[in-house]
């Protein structure tokens, strides 16, 4: 009888803990993770291998500025660090050719 009573108590206690755990989970829902910003995944990092390079190109392909759109403005320094060039400063003055690339 004592064993039966003990077993019953154990079941009740276990059930109580389970209820509390469920309530706790319901009280604190996990926030949805922010959707990844694909174009930022590779920014600031060395391109490690061919697969990464191809993923990078593919991810950014959707961003490419199109003919007829306003050119995204930037302000960058010259390689000697002495001058700053702002793309929009050429508006109304002169067309600009941008050759993007690197040594390798």
């Amino acid at each position, binding site marked *: 009888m004592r064993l039966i009573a003990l077993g019953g108590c154990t079941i009740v206690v276990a059930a109580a803990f389970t209820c509390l755990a469920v309530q706790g989970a319901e009280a604190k829902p996990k926030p949805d993770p922010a959707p990844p910003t694909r174009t930022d995944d590779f920014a600031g990092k060395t391109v490690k291998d061919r697969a990464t390079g191809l993923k990078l190109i593919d991810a950014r392909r959707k961003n490419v500025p199109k003919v007829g759109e306003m050119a995204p403005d930037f302000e960058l*320094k010259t*390689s000697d660090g002495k001058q700053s060039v702002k793309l929009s400063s050429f508006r109304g003055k002169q067309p600009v050719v941008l050759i*993007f690339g690197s040594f*390798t």
Partner: protein
Amino acid sequence: MRASVDVNKVHQRFGERVQFFQVYLREAHPTDGWKMKNSKIKDPLTQLERNLVASQCGKQLKYKFPTIVDTMKDATAVRWAAWPERIFVIDVNGKIAYAGHQGPWGFWPTNRFKRSGRMKLKGDSLEAFLEKTLHETSKDKNVEP
């Protein structure tokens, strides 16, 4: 390197009427990353390192126009989808007039230059585009192209 000869040729023809810039980006094939047989440069880790490599690049390729350098966060490369290489032309109104194909296979400075015959490129090379655009402008103003 072969492409730089053609870029210089276009600059020689149109550099007085159009401002050229080399926009230096993250290394495509550094020795500590996506290495190629002729890779010789480690990926710069600081802005100063990247500036130094960019300066050397401009000198070695004999570019006669300024080199400006993207930030270490690659903000410009991201916004322009320009990595690893690409050519754009912006008109006097600040709008994109020419958006070249994605490099390296689509990098197309002159009609003569194509990285690979396998890739059939649509549209114009940079040189052909500038010829058409500036020649028309010259015609309107009775100026010899």
